């Protein structure tokens, strides 16, 4: 199993390569590919954290499992783009969906207790 520190290091590297855009900037293939790779790595990191959480808590959380599996399935619909490809609305929406699912999973595992 890959160490969580390696996954986080990969995520930091990907984040450093991302850029903010404004009107008039060209849409580059790397913009979409970096976000895709970030989401894929974040899902793997969340899976590792969930394994650790399961081991320590000695129980399962079906919501977290559902979020992780759904995120994986959504990412399966995406693929890396190349120069000249059309950036579809799907490429944008899937990334948003995955980030939301990971947020729910991480907050259930490590967020403050719900009153």
């Amino acid at each position: 199993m890959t160490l969580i520190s390696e996954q986080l290091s990969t995520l930091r590297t990907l984040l450093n390569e991302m850029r903010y855009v404004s009107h008039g900037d060209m849409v580059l293939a790397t913009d979409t590919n970096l976000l895709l790779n970030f989401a894929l790595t974040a899902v793997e990191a969340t899976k590792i954290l969930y394994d650790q959480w399961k081991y320590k808590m000695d129980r399962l959380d079906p919501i977290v499992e559902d979020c992780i599996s759904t995120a994986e399935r959504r990412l399966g619909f995406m693929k890396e783009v190349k120069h000249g490809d059309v950036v579809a609305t799907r490429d944008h929406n899937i990334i948003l969906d995955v980030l939301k699912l990971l947020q729910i999973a991480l907050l259930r595992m490590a967020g403050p207790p719900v009153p």
Partner: protein
Amino acid sequence: MLSAFPAKLVDYAVLNTAFTVELYDAISSSDRINKGYMKSIHDGLRAVDSSSVRPAKNLTEVVSTSDTCSKTPVLNVIDVIRLSEVHKKGRGITLFDTLSAVDRTSLSLLLNLRDTFVGEFGITRKPGLTRHDVITPRESISKLGTKQLRDESFVTDLISKHTDKALLDQMAAGDLVRKVGVKPLYDGTRLKEIVAKVEFSVIRQITERLELDKARRVYFLPEEYRYLHDIIMPEDHNIKVDASKVLLALLEWAERKIEHLHYPGPLFERIGITDWIEKVVKKSIRDKVDWAVDGSEEGRGT
């Protein structure tokens, strides 16, 4: 009415009355009602409801039930207990090696030892001696008559009343309300009230700045709705970059939280939460940050 000796497997219901010895290798039932007067040993017990009354001795190695009610005047030893609710009344000794419960209510008159207690709510009332090596409930309400020992305790809310003596090695609580009648002793106690509040604050700020609620989905519209002009705007891309940065901060937070999940007392010392806020979170969240630390607003990187 059934009598079991020495190995018995019961599937659905057990109504048992024995006067000498009961030995169960495995019990799986929906309802279990048991009365014993001398000795009862259970290797494994899985039941939806379990009720037992014993005046002599009760040994249970593994108990997994949704509800259990037991009354033991003398001795009660449970190695592992997992259940949603525990209602227990004991007048002798209660030993829990591991206890994982959502709700727990126990009344003991003499001695209660728990190595590990993990539950959302723990309510204990004991006039004798209580020792918690590790206690991690969401709420703990305890009323003790004489003495209380806790090596580590991490609770959101703690309300305790002591009339004689309280020893706390480590304590981390969100809200701590304590009334001590005679003498409290703190052996290196570090109240992490402020740090616990920082945790809530950090998580709240992280989640508020995920900004995913502001993010919008983009739809490919057919020709007749072309005038709506729904395309991916630069702001949509920037929000995803912001959300990715904050999600990384959330992952780093979760890594540290899970790493020290069972040892929340020294957690804040090890990770150095103040440094972590400065170095990781604050760097990661560069957009529209209104930190309580300095109240400054930083500009977005380009």
